[in-house]
């Protein structure tokens, strides 16, 4: 469009106009008064070089995704907080790994070189697992480091346990007391009375070495409230107890979890699941809850809780009946011969007969049957089955907790799931599912202690010979029953009172000074359990400690190095640091150095044989330093690392301090198909089922990743398996193959489960009375931005997630005349909790769900669990006597703003502290896997007038009774070998075989020799 120009104007006319406008308008507002220009004091850089303007682009003109690693020691960047001013800051970038879940993703700490403060955490592009990308929890490490509520000094209890009175003590006092107790226990041969109970280890190999150097069987874990069901299902097939899918190359992905948003290794896995999907893979998700993951799936299969195995076996049946399975693979790698010999001696032992039998065995698992059990349409089951058949060897699947952790017989779910991988021959293949140990590498430290010769019955009771692993959540019941006591009990990044089922029984046990003589909580923050400790010892967060670790995030082996970033920075800037406490806030320490110091004090003169493991390999007789410990590992135990470091002119330790991670190998495929060489086979012996044994010493390996292994027997050790006349490496199972038929299960008391099968769960829908408002409660799901109890001190994360309503389907809520926001009493076998309803179609009818993440509590206004997350509660025990079994927790108030050094604490706007539900769950040990079966049968009722959101009531007499009922399901070890547990199976901190002999059991004719480290 064009326009007609104005006539030319005289400047005078403009001025007139201006005066006129001023006359009209001058009183409306005056222009701001001039301000004096703020004086920006130049930051004093230690090296006094002037701050340049940071480049905003790479030399090629593109924006960089990450700072180039050659600038990490001195990186310039504008201060984002001063935006829109452009103020350059000088950083040192030091890598470490995140400690806010199990994935150990890489972080880069941005350390301000002027103030030596960490200003932010971003992704470490050199980390092979996370590749520079993190979830919300990684950057939130900053909150944890600078949390005004954190514990800065060792604290000792004064007054009664749990009374909340503390005094600050020196590390010396704490160390001397604890070391004295441990020394006494060792000298008096009470080697099962020292227990180290860890929630999130976050390290590989270090603690095993410490505890075995003390000669105790003292490791306890959180595994059986988590992955025991998942582990056992996989172990029954292949010995190795966890899957490692190659999602990125997969054509079909089947997930029994909310794996894109939470779950093990969720961030590294989610990246690769999305890559697989972008390359055309389809995703099916089994979950009664429409998780974020299910919402991204091509097939959402909302199975009724506990029916998953039925659906999986129906899929297997379709593959079998329609001939969509890989016959050659089965012929080669499944122990069908053993099955035919043992179970069908009357049939000809041919593969053809086996396939016929297979068709017959699973014919009953029709899609219609599965639909009736699960509620998932038969059509969808058929579609998924055919997709899986088409994907063939590029079918990947994953189950860790979810159904496996929820149900009685939950381990049958991964057993049935992995059956599909077996049928499609997709094990260890490109796009298939590997075993974790193939994609993991634990490097050997400089000196390995001998295996302990004791067996801890408090962790490994006889009722559960196949448990995967320690029966940790039964500990307080065992103590109640008088099965033993603890002279020294460490909890480390572990909060059983809050995390485990039946927390009030834990409180009863931990308060009892006869059962637990001394309890030290190693933790960065207050939690519900540390409140019941005698010592609270502050330990560093993910950026304040040393660890190495390696996880099966994808088809590769890598190792990552967690380090105290400020210490590293100080050392790089030329300051000498004696121990990590100098770099951490207050007197916060790190465990690695703590255990060394403690071990020296347990055995000051070396007479117990403990001290030598904590002496420097480079300076005989001196205490080992962190540099020396890791230097040895990096120089001697990680293939390829010394060369890579040399290529950059660095020592291996310097390389790891600089990059924080190293990739050892990529693309590890079908290692079991590796053929044994003539040299390896020399002098070997093949037994009747094809297992190859050799007396030759095993080749030297610096990888000490725990693997299942046949015990070294008369014929030496198992090195492989003969398949159709060829010697292969095979699988670490008794048969050397994938065990469709598990002789172990048959012999150890569970013959009915020796084949993949389906069993109805303890919360099966058939047993629910709808009219009585009975529901299955799913309490297991994570909120993607929280991490159990560890994120309580991360303000950003709590601002994102701070509520855990009870999910309910509209069909159910309408029937009960309830709506969103209504309070409900959720009654379990032993008590109830009061939650808020959320009506949503995202949950299947007949099921309610509540995340376990909320409901943190503290007992006093100022102290205890972080105020960012916890509600103030009152806990009353047993009426007048205060010693009864009836416990009542009342939430006095939720989260509210508070004054602290951090101004954000006064800005807290959320009020909900959520409700804690685990307290109201009795223990449900699965008799086979030992897993706690989390799902609950509950009765929903409208809250009563006296009820408040967050209230909890429990009777621990009832909970002990439920424990006894479930204990009765177990079948104690009665194996003719006289052993406590199959020797070949995985067991953390595996003891010497001599410790396996059952009391009263007859020892085998010749006890296998210890599996000596070479």
């Amino acid at each position, binding site marked *: *469009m*064009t*326009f*007609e*120009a*104005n*006539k*030319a*104007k005289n*400047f*005078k*006319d*403009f*001025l*007139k*106009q*201006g*005066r*006129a*406008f*001023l006359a*009209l*308008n*001058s009183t409306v*507002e005056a*222009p*701001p*008064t*001039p*301000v*004096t*220009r*703020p004086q920006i004091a130049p930051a004093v850089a230690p090296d006094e070089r002037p701050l340049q303007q940071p480049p905003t682009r790479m030399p090629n*003109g593109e924006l960089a995704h990450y700072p180039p690693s050659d600038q990490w020691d001195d990186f310039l960047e504008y201060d984002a907080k001063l935006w*829109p001013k*452009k103020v350059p800051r000088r950083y040192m970038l030091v890598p470490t790994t995140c400690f806010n879940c199990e994935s150990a993703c890489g972080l880069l700490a941005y350390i301000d070189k002027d103030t030596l403060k960490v200003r932010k955490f971003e992704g470490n592009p050199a980390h092979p697992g996370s590749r520079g990308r993190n979830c919300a929890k990684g950057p939130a490490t900053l909150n944890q480091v600078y949390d005004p509520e954190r514990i800065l000094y060792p604290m000792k209890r004064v007054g009664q346990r749990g009374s909340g009175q503390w005094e600050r003590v020196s590390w010396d006092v704490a160390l001397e007391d604890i070391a004295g107790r441990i020394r006494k226990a060792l000298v008096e041969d009470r080697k099962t009375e020292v227990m180290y109970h860890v929630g999130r280890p976050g390290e590989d190999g270090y603690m095993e070495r410490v505890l075995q150097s003390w000669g105790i069987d003292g490791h306890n874990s959180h595994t059986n409230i988590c992955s025991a069901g998942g582990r056992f299902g996989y172990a029954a097939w292949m010995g190795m107890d966890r899957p490692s899918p190659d999602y990125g190359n997969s054509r079909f992905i089947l997930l029994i979890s909310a794996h894109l948003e939470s779950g093990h290794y969720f961030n590294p896995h989610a990246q690769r699941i999305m890559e697989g999907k972008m390359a055309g893979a389809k995703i099916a998700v089994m979950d009664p809850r429409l998780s974020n993951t299910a919402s991204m799936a091509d097939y959402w299969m909302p199975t009724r809780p506990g029916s998953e195995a039925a659906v999986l076996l129906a899929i297997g049946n379709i593959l079998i009946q329609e001939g969509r399975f890989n016959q050659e693979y089965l012929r080669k790698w499944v122990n069908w011969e053993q099955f035919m010999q043992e179970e069908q001696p009357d049939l000809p032992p041919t593969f053809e007969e086996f396939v016929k039998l297979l068709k017959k065995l699973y014919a009953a698992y029709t899609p219609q049957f599965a639909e009736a059990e699960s509620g998932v349409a038969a059509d969808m089951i058929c579609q998924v089955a055919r997709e899986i058949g088409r994907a063939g060897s590029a079918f990947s699947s994953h189950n860790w907790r979810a159904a496996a952790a929820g149900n009685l017989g939950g381990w049958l779910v991964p057993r049935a799931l992995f059956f599909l991988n077996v049928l499609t021959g997709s094990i260890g293949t490109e796009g298939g599912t590997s075993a974790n140990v193939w994609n993991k590498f634990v490097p050997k430290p400089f000196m390995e202690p001998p295996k302990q010769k004791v067996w801890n019955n408090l962790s490994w009771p006889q009722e559960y010979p196949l448990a995967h692993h320690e029966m940790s959540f039964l500990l307080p019941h065992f103590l109640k029953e008088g099965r033993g006591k603890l002279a020294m009990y460490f909890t480390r990044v572990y909060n059983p009172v809050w995390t485990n089922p039946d927390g009030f029984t834990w409180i009863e046990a931990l308060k009892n000074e006869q059962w637990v003589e001394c309890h030290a909580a190693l933790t960065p923050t207050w939690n519900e359990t540390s409140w019941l400790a005698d010592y609270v010892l502050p330990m560093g967060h993910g950026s304040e400690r040393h660890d190495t670790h390696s996880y099966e995030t994808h088809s590769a082996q890598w190792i990552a190095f967690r380090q105290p970033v400020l210490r590293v920075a100080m050392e790089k800037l030329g300051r000498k640091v004696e121990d990590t406490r100098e770099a951490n806030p207050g007197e916060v320490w790190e465990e690695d150095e703590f255990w060394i110091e403690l071990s020296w004090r347990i055995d000051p003169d070396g007479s117990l044989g403990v001290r030598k493991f904590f002496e420097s390999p480079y300076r005989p007789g001196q205490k080992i330093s962190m540099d020396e410990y890791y230097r040895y590992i990096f120089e001697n135990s990680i293939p390829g690392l010394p060369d890579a470091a040399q290529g950059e002119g660095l020592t291996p330790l310097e390389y790891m301090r600089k990059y924080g991670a190293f990739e050892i190998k990529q693309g590890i495929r079908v290692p079991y198909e590796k053929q044994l060489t003539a040299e390896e086979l020399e002098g070997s012996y093949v037994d009747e089922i094809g297992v190859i044994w050799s007396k030759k010493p095993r080749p030297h390996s610096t990888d000490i990743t725990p693997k299942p292994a046949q015990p070294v027997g008369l014929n030496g050790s198992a090195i492989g398996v003969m398949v159709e006349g060829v010697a292969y490496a095979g699988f670490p199972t008794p048969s050397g193959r994938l065990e469709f038929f598990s002789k172990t299960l048959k012999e150890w008391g569970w013959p009915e489960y020796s084949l993949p099968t389906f069993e109805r769960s303890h919360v099966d829908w058939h047993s629910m009375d709808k009219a009585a408002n009975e529901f299955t409660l799913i309490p297991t799901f994570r909120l993607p931005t929280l991490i159990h109890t560890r994120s309580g001190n991360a303000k950003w994360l709590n601002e994102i997630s701070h509520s855990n309503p009870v999910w309910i389907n509209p069909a159910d809520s309408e029937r009960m005349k309830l709506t969103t926001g209504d309070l409900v009493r959720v009654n379990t076998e032993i008590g109830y909790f009061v939650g808020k309803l959320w009506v949503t179609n995202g949950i299947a009818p007949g099921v309610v769900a509540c995340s376990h993440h909320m409901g943190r509590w503290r007992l006093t206004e100022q102290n205890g669990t972080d105020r960012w997350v916890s509600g103030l509660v009152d806990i009353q025990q047993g009426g007048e006597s205060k010693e009864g079994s009836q416990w009542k927790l009342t939430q006095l108030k939720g989260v509210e703003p508070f004054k602290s050094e951090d101004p954000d604490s006064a800005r807290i706007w959320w009020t909900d502290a959520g409700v804690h539900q685990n307290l109201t769950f009795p223990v449900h040990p699965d008799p086979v896997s030992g897993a706690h079966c989390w799902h609950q049968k509950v009765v929903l009722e409208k809250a009563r007038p006296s009820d408040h959101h967050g209230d909890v009531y429990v009777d621990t007499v009832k909970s002990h009774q439920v424990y006894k009922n479930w204990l009765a399901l177990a079948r104690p070890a009665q194996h003719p070998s006289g052993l406590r547990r199959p020797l070949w199976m995985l067991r953390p901190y595996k003891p010497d075989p001599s410790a396996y002999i059952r009391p009263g059991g007859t020892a085998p004719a010749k006890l296998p020799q210890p599996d000596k480290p070479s």
Partner: protein
Amino acid sequence: MRKPDYPENTEPALISSEVKGQISGSTPVEQSGEAEARSGVYRLYSHLFACEMELEELAFLRQSPETLVRVTRPAEKDQESWLKDLRVEYARLFLLNVYPFESIYASSELMLNTEETEQVREFYLANGFKLLQAKGPVGRLLPDHLAAELYFMEFVAKRQAQALSEGNLKEAFFLVNSQSDFLREHLLSWLPVFALAVISNSREDFYRELIGEILAFLEADLQYLTGLLANISLNQELFISEYPSHFRKTLAPQNLALAKEAKLAKELVDQEDSSELGFKRLVRRLVTPVESGFYLTKEDMYNLGRTMRLPLGVGDRFQMLQSLFEAAAQFELLPALFQELTKFTEDTISNLKKLEEENSSSRNTKYLGGVWETRLKTTLKLFEEMKQALVDLVRL
């Protein structure tokens, strides 16, 4: 820094004279009055662009005999519905199509809050101006919003008036210098292309006329300020030496302008090397005002699509033009599209010429016509080449 070494009694005076047909007062007091009046002009324009029109402003524009903007109420409308129309027009123009931010027009990044914005902010700070302290809607704007930049001019003019009335001639000189620098480096560097886009997108006469008038005033004001500076009978070197360091880093605006152009040229070269190839590169070029010489609004592109009966959704400008090209290629209408774009460019050039005619003095400065005209003509040539290439392609 050197100390001022001229004696007190030789302090400079701003000597009055007729500057190229313009006026300036003979005494500091008179000049103070002029500065005051100029601040009023800036205040008016800043008000009109900061947000939608208010009734008082409309009343002022209609009733004051001094106003220059022609505002005639359409016969069929009452005051209220007319005001509403103007407010709707403001939103359509400045919130949806012709975004009034320097960064959009002066940089190749095509984003808000670029380095240009930052330079404006720094300029403000150096002159003791904090936009956040401004009352009213201006205080909430980004610093390179047209209204903010005009408001800054008002602020400095006002300080100049004050300095003159207090007899602080040195301070006044610095402030005059700042104003002329700011006009050169900022306001006038982007206002022409912005004005052309406003002109071609206006449905009401009001904003079309207003932007023409503002441009004319800025031109005249720059002339006026230059005149003031030229008439200072003083060793400028001395003055420069005393120039408060916090005012400006350098006193050579020409150098700054040159540096700015050099930077732009480099950015454009960098873009040539970028990964965008073929017609995407062409599209990028056409939506980038510093390259094409015009600003294609979403509505312009939408209208182009309508004219050619091609389907076109509304997206970001790059995507819209890309879709337009794709659709045109699909229907074998590329020659026609180039023809339409040629027409658009020619119209823009003709509007530019008319703007220039409005103020004859503007031919003397390259800030208005020169740069933009060259860019537009280069674009015209590009279209000719493209059309020829298409003909050659068909022949093959």
